[in-house]
C-alpha cells in the first residue's frame, strides 16, 4: 500500500498498550484447548473428534473455517475494488485494517483445510507436481488460488511491518532488511495489488462452482449455474460488512474516530451489490421453474428466503436512511451485521444445510470438539489481530475532538 494518502484521518499508528489483557488470556486459553483436541485428532483419526461421516464428508470446518472464513476475509478485496477499480482514494484509511483481517482470515482458512485433510502429508505435492494436475477439478483451482492469495495478502500487508522495523529502536538486522526491501516492494506493489484483485474474483466464484459437483445431492434451490456469481457478489457484500463492523469496533474500543462520510459512501456500494444479488437470486429461481420449491415452506425454502431477507433488509435500510451522522451508527452496524450473516448463511446452506446425501444418512451436526476447534480458530484470529494492531501501524483515525467536521 501507499505510504501516504491517509489524509485527514492521520497516518496509521500502533494502538499500543498492554498485550496480555484478560480477554487475550481467555482467547489463548481457547486456542490451547483447540490445539489439544487437534493432537487427539492426529492420533486417533477424524472420526474420533468429529461427527462427519461418509454421507457428510464435509462438516463445520469446511463450511465455516474455509468457505465462510475466507469470505469474511474479503474486506481487503472489497475495499481494494473501491480504491483501485473505482478510483476512490478516500477509502485508503480503511485498507490496512481490512487487509489484516483478510490475511488472518485466509491464513486460518488455509489452516482449516489442513486440519480437515485426511492425508495432509502429500499436500506439498499439490503446488509442485503440476504435471499431475487434474484440470477438470474445480477444487484444484480453488486450492491453488487460496494458497497464492494468502501469500499475496501478507506481501500487500508487508509495508506495515517494514514501517515498524525502520524505527531506530528496532534490531539493526530488521532495519537493514526493511531499508533494502521497501523500495522493491513499492515497485512490485501495483502488480501484486492487481493479483490481489484477480485471485479472489477467481476462487470466491469457484467456491460456488465447486459445490455444484455435488449435483443431485445439492438442493435444487442452490443447484444453479449462477451459484459462482452469487458466491462472488456475496463475498464482496460480506467484505464491506466486516470492514464496517471492524471500523466501528476499533472506534468503540480504541477511540479511533473516522468521518462518517466514509461509511456513508460505502453504504451506497453495499446497496448496489445487495440489490443486484437479491434480484438475481429470485429471478434465477423464477426463470428455472423452481418457484414451487421456493414457496413450499419446507426447511429449504425457509433457508432460501432467510438468505434473501438478510440481504434485502440491509439494502432497504441503507436506502431509506443513509448513514450521515454519528447517530446513524447503530443503524449501520445492524445492516452490516445482517449482510455478513446473510452471506454466511448462503455458504452454510450450499455446503451443509442443503447438502442431502440421501435419506438413510443422519443429519449432520458438529460435535462439541469440532465446535471448540472452530472457536479456537476464531480466537487465534482475535489474538493475532489485537497483537498486531497494538504493535504495528494498522489503524487510522483520531480522537473525535481532533476530527475536522
Amino acid at each position, binding site marked *: 500500500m501507499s505510504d501516504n494518502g491517509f489524509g485527514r484521518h492521520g497516518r496509521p499508528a500502533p494502538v499500543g498498550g498492554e498485550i496480555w489483557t484478560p480477554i487475550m488470556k481467555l482467547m489463548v486459553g481457547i486456542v490451547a484447548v483447540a490445539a489439544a483436541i487437534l493432537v487427539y485428532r492426529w492420533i486417533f483419526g477424524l472420526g474420533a473428534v468429529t461427527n462427519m461421516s461418509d454421507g457428510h464428508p464435509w462438516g463445520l470446518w469446511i463450511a465455516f473455517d474455509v468457505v465462510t472464513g475466507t469470505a469474511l476475509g474479503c474486506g481487503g478485496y472489497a475495499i481494494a475494488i473501491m480504491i483501485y477499480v473505482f478510483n476512490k482514494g478516500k477509502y485508503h484509511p480503511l485498507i490496512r485494517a481490512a487487509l489484516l483481517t483478510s490475511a488472518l482470515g485466509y491464513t486460518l482458512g488455509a489452516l482449516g483445510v489442513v486440519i480437515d*485433510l485426511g492425508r495432509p502429508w502429500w499436500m506439498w505435492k499439490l503446488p509442485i507436481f503440476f504435471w499431475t494436475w*487434474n484440470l477438470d477439478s474445480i477444487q484444484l*483451482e480453488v486450492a491453488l488460488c487460496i494458497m497464492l492469495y494468502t501469500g499475496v495478502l501478507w506481501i500487500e500487508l508487508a509495508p506495515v511491518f517494514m514501517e515498524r522495523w525502520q524505527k531506530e529502536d528496532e534490531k539493526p538486522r530488521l532495519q537493514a532488511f526493511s531499508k533494502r526491501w521497501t523500495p522493491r516492494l513499492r515497485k512490485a506493489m501495483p502488480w501484486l495489488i492487481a493479483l490481489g484483485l484477480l485471485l479472489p474474483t477467481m476462487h470466491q466464484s469457484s467456491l460456488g462452482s465447486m459445490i455444484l459437483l455435488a449435483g443431485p445431492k445439492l438442493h435444487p434451490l442452490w443447484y444453479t*449455474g449462477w451459484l459462482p456469481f452469487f458466491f462472488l457478489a456475496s463475498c464482496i457484500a460480506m467484505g464491506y460488512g466486516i470492514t464496517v463492523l471492524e471500523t466501528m469496533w476499533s472506534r468503540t474500543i480504541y477511540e479511533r474516530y473516522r468521518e462518517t462520510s466514509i461509511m456513508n459512501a460505502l453504504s451506497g456500494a453495499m446497496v448496489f451489490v445487495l440489490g443486484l444479488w437479491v434480484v438475481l437470486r429470485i429471478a434465477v429461481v423464477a426463470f428455472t421453474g423452481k418457484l414451487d420449491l421456493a414457496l413450499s415452506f419446507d426447511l429449504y425454502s425457509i433457508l432460501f428466503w432467510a438468505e434473501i431477507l438478510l440481504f434485502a433488509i440491509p439494502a432497504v435500510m441503507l436506502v431509506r436512511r443513509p448513514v450521515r451522522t454519528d447517530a446513524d451508527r447503530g443503524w449501520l452496524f445492524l445492516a452490516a451485521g445482517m449482510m455478513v450473516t446473510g452471506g454466511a448463511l448462503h455458504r452454510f446452506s450450499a455446503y451443509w444445510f442443503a447438502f442431502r446425501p440421501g435419506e438413510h444418512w443422519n443429519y449432520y451436526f458438529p460435535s462439541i470438539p469440532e465446535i471448540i476447534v472452530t472457536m479456537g480458530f476464531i480466537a487465534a484470529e482475535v489474538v493475532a489481530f489485537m497483537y498486531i494492531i497494538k504493535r504495528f501501524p494498522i489503524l487510522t483515525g483520531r480522537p473525535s475532538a481532533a476530527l475536522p467536521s
Partner: protein
Amino acid sequence: MHVTRRDALKVAAFGAATAAGARKAEAREKREAPPDATGMLYDSTLCIGCKACVVACREANDLSYERHSRLYDDPVDLSGHTCNIIKLMEDGQGGTAFMKAQCMHCIDPACASACMMGSFQKRQNGIVTWKPEKCIGCRYCQVACPFNIPKFEWDSPTPAMVKCQMCLAKAGTVEPGQLNEVGQPACTEVCPRHAVIYGTYTDLVEEAKRRIAESPDRYEDHVYGLEEAGGTQVLYLTAKGVPFEALGLPPLGKDSVPSMPVGLQHTIYKGFVAPIALYGVLAGLVWKSRRAHDAREAAMEKEMAP
C-alpha cells in the same frame, strides 16, 4: 456513493466473466464408455443373498471384518472396511429384494473429475481406481459421488479411500485394451447363481436387454446404469414391480454429474483467456489510480514547501 456511467460500465465488465459463463455454459460433451470397457451386471431376481461375494471381496482386497453385533461379520453398509455388500431391501409391496452395492464405475465419474491430482482415475477397462500416492484426503470425491461410494477410514490417523476397483489390483499390470488378467473380480467369480456377472460393457448391455426381452413379466423394462448419471459400467436389473429406488439406486438424470459444473468452469476459464485479460485490465486500473494518487501527493508537497 456517486455512481458515474463509467463506474457502472466497470461493474458490468467485472461481473461479465461469471455471468456470461453461467448463462452460456454448455454441458460438457457426453462421454462414451471406452472401447475396452468391462463391467458387471447384477440381476436382483437371481440373487439369493448368500453373501459369498461379500466374503470373497474381503479376502481379495485384504479388508478386515466389521462387527456391529455379536455376529462374526455384519457390515451394514459400504464403509472403510467394506467395498461390496448384499443388502435385503423392502420392495415397497410388502416383500423384499436383494441388492448388491459397490462402485458403479461411471463412464464419466464425478470422483475422478473432483480429484485434484488424479488419485481417482478411469484406468484400463474403464475401471475407476484410487492410487494412494497423490491423495491428500480432502474427500471432495465423496461430496461429488451421486452414489455415495468412496469411503473414508474415519477411525485411522492415516486414512485411505476405500472402494471397489473391480479387483484390478489383483490383476497386476494390465496393458491398456486388454481384459483383466484374472478373468473376473472375486465377487462374480464366487457367485453360485451368476446373479452378478463380469464381462465387456457391450456384452453386458446386450445380455441385460436380452433378459428383459426374453422374460418381460419377470423384469422391470429398464436397465439401471444405461443412462443414469451419464451411464455406468455396472448395470442392474430389478424384478417386475420393484422400483430401482427401493433397491437404493437414486433416480438420476441422463447428464453426468460433472457435465454442468465442469462445463461451466471450462467455459469461464477457456484457454485461461478471461483471467489473463482481467489481470491486464486490473493492473492498468491500479497503475492509473496510483499515478493519479502520486501526482496529488507531489502537488501537496510542493504547496507545503517553503
